[in-house]
């Protein structure tokens, strides 16, 4: 594969990465603003802090995958928008696991509401459980491939 073959897709993925980061920033700011205006300032601060931390990590991953290609890991290349085909397969397998767990959890959570469990707590806990699932699944799948 020549450099010419790779330049067009590389430009496309670079543009897609910057668009993704910009969209992420807008969503993060908009969500924090809406939650803050609704009177939940601590939650808004949490959303802003978490969102900005993720975007900063994505920026660091991109810098690392460009400046230190050999040392960048699978996660760094994916976050940087520069994955190769194995990285994409790890990503897809991880998301498949998260999807299955999300379906199972949402079913269990739905059933739990009939057992007088507070639905608000379930909804607020769900993202953390799914992020933890994603991290564990990613490590396991990355080792397997």
């Amino acid at each position, binding site marked *: *594969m020549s450099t010419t073959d*790779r330049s067009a897709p590389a430009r496309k993925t670079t543009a897609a990465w910057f668009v993704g980061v910009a969209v992420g920033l807008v969503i993060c700011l908009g969500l924090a603003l809406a939650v803050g205006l609704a009177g939940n300032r601590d939650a808004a601060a949490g959303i802003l802090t978490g969102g900005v931390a993720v975007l900063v990590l994505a920026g660091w991953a991109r810098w690392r995958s460009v400046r230190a*290609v*050999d040392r*960048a*890991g*699978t996660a760094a*290349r994916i976050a940087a928008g520069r994955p*190769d*085909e*194995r*990285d994409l*397969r790890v990503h897809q397998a991880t998301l498949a696991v998260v999807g299955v767990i999300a379906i199972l959890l949402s079913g269990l959570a739905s059933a739990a509401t009939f057992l007088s469990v507070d639905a608000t707590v379930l909804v607020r806990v769900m993202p953390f459980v799914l992020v933890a699932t994603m991290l564990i699944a990613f490590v396991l799948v990355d080792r*397997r*491939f």
Partner: protein
Amino acid sequence: MQNEIRRLREQRGLSQAALGAELGVSRQTVNSLETGKYDPSLPLAFTIARYFARSIEEIFHVDD
């Protein structure tokens, strides 16, 4: 699936990172290919075969 990538790479005196750069994949992907943990896509298999000037069958062998 077994393959001859490590042998062919070492014959050429290339590091995994150098071969990865030639093939447009990461060092980890080359390592996973060599250890048989990861089976390449058909386009990557063709790229590898073309790079080593061999046929796909000469490089990749199905486990029996």
